[in-house]
């Protein structure tokens, strides 16, 4: 832990355990029941784990005639046992490219999965071999950039590289579509009504009523875009409604240039009624990259995760009314996703192995060429739930 600016009564989160993985992950989400964790991988699979609470160890009673156990040496470093384990379940397969987006239905036992070849799938997620409920292999022409589910569980929203925003029923029926002018990187449902917000590669954010099919307000997040030589550098990654839909957070990066893609993580808060920018946060230096994911904690704060140059990554805790995060955790590399457990007491992040860059060390000594991986780090929020 570092860079702490603890707020009153905030107990810094404690990492319970790191769970290795053999592939890189794009996104991780807890199920609404809290018993499962699922993650979309940079291959056509969804990784699943059961979240298993360990029984608290019984208090050992020393019997008078039993030999005494040797005490552990004073310098021994035994990590404390995690009270929670993630027990791996068989992967969900049949997807293509990357699974960059997943979303759990808030009530039913359904997981929605979007891949980068345009497939949108609804599937059961419990048991060893859960079956798909429905799938649409051409939901988009290519990369589905973002998948969102409405809070009432009635609708899905997707957006893609094909410049479309689409709204579906959770039974898979297309409700409405909007053809935009550029690659659409993020979409989110407003808490109530039939309004979605979407953001494109140029940092243009708009709302759209999928009931009336009318365009709504426009928000200028062009600070998250740069034309760098030939490259349109898109910094926009996340859209999050907060404060009951009164505010919209746009997260990503203020790009300094393409190629290496340096830029500072950025979050911009807009008033959804007026469209005016309320607050703009920049977190860190150009090497720190993007705010890639945001989780809202019912305690009134955001958990933001960032990923930039290989090795850099942060987990930040921010109250929307404050200028700076009140706590920042930096002992993780390239955090790509964060998910809050429904009990509000734990969260998990999908991060990266250390030293993930590849220049100058293409292969291991034995000539093999292992890929990078995304360990899942499980944290406890202590007294902050």
């Amino acid at each position: 832990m570092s860079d702490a600016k603890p707020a009153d009564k905030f107990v810094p989160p404690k990492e319970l355990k790191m769970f290795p993985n053999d592939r890189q992950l794009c996104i991780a989400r807890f199920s609404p029941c809290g018993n499962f964790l699922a993650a979309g991988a940079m291959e056509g699979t969804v990784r699943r784990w059961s979240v298993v609470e360990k029984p608290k160890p019984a208090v050992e009673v020393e019997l008078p005639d039993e030999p005494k156990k040797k005490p552990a040496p004073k310098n021994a470093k035994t990590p404390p046992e995690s009270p929670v384990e993630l027990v791996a379940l068989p992967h969900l397969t049949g997807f293509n490219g990357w699974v960059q987006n997943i979303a759990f239905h808030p009530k039913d036992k359904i997981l929605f999965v979007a891949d980068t070849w345009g497939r949108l799938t609804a599937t059961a997620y419990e048991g060893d071999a859960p079956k798909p409920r429905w799938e649409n292999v051409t939901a988009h022409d290519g990369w589905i950039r973002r998948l969102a589910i409405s809070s009432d569980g009635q609708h899905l929203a997707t957006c893609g590289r094909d410049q479309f925003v689409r709204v579906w029923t959770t039974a898979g029926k297309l409700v409405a579509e909007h053809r935009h002018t550029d690659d659409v990187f993020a979409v989110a449902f407003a808490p109530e009504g039939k309004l979605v917000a979407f953001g494109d590669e140029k940092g243009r954010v708009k709302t759209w009523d999928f009931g009336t099919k009318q365009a709504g307000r426009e928000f200028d997040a062009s600070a998250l875009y740069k034309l760098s030589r030939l490259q349109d550098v898109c910094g926009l990654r996340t859209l999050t409604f907060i404060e009951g839909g009164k505010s919209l957070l746009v997260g990503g990066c203020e790009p300094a240039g393409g190629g290496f893609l340096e830029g500072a993580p950025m979050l911009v808060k807009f008033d959804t009624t007026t469209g005016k920018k309320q607050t703009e946060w920049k977190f860190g230096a150009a090497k720190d990259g993007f705010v890639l994911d945001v989780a809202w904690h019912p305690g009134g704060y955001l958990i933001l995760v960032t990923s930039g140059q290989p090795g850099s990554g942060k987990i930040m805790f921010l109250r929307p009314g404050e200028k700076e995060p009140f706590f920042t955790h930096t002992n993780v590399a390239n955090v790509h996703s964060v998910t809050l457990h429904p009990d509000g007491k734990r969260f998990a992040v999908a991060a990266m192995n250390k030293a993930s860059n590849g220049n100058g060390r293409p292969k291991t000594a034995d000539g093999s060429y292992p890929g990078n991986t995304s360990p899942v780090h499980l944290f406890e929020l202590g007294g902050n739930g």
Partner: protein
Amino acid sequence: MNPLCKPWEHATSRRQFLGASAGAMAFGALGGLVSPQAAEAMRKKEKQVLFVWLDGGMSQLESWDPKPNTEFGGPFRTIKTTVPGTHFSELMPQCAKQAHRLCVVRNIATKDNAHSSGVARIQRGDPKNRGVPYPFFGSSIAKLMGPTSSKLPAYVWVKPGSGGFKAEDAGFLGPKYGSLAFGDGKPPEDLLRHASLTAEEDDERNELREVFNRRYAAQRRPAYTEASSYVFDSARELMKRADIFDTTKLPAKELDRYGRTELGQHMLIARNMLEAGVRFVKVGSYGWDTHGDNFNASASLVPKFDRAFASIIEDLAASGLLEHTLVIAMSEFGRTPRINGHVGRDHWPEAWSIAMAGCGLKAGAVVGATNDKGTDVKDKGHDIGAVFHTWFNALGIDPKKTEYNNNGQPLPLAHDEMEAIKEALV
């Protein structure tokens, strides 16, 4: 013949025959004897080169050699091309339509994974160390083949940023064979004769300039003064063809087809230059070093290359120039199969691709292959020396029989232990 002549002097003679003097002899001698149409037809048969340099390293996996649904394959799909059984990344739909005109080598395996050394090493053909800097390919062609009968500069470079004369490209050949670079695709400032000057006044000024030049040259090394004169003379030829740089008068459809991007517009200028008779046109594009966010970067960059490159291939084929023009698109290396924490790909010289087309090459060929994950070449790969042999052969220059003469030091044109990629050649 002088009984004390050296073997390389014979090579020099041969070179001169193959090179600069050939064009001058053929067309200079015919000068006023052939009709303009016939002269133009003959000029169109002169060999030319288009060299597209994607600086930083385009990902082979997001372009010529995709590995969909594999560990390092990335998010993109593949698409069919006009060559049955060959697929490109979905980011290259226009090149896919031109695949029957391309020759893609997928088993390039080079040695340098740093830009600082790799750019020059690759463009010089990475020969054995002879203690002198070798010329870039463009300078080699300028030396070996000279200007075409158009008398336009032999080696030009259309690039983003600054322009000027890049003598360093020429290595030991001397500054005369450097590239004349047009920064941001713009002609040199003051290219056109000022409106207040008459042609006669302009001639008088040039006579005076030549007097000064001779005085200046008398006190300096000939290589540098020759280069200065060469650049000036080339610029004067360009004065007659300022239209080459003007893409604004082209139909909107044409501009859209190439893409209204820096690379698209520079490729159009390159097309104009090839049509006008420039021997070697290099088009540079920067920003391909996608260590971060490689896939979104590729989604932005590759289609812009795709559109511009496919359009010029299509146009060169339609005009008949492709038959006599060697077209090359490449970088200093490829990109790692492994995806780093910044969702980028790093430098990967071990297994990457070069796309070519045109004279001397097999159209529709896909040469070599990488393994299933794209981490290594299958069988034997080709280093850049072999690629240089291939290019020289495609242009009708036999690098096994032709040598440079570096002030008496015979030097091979390309790595003398390497061979041309025979599968790529007609």
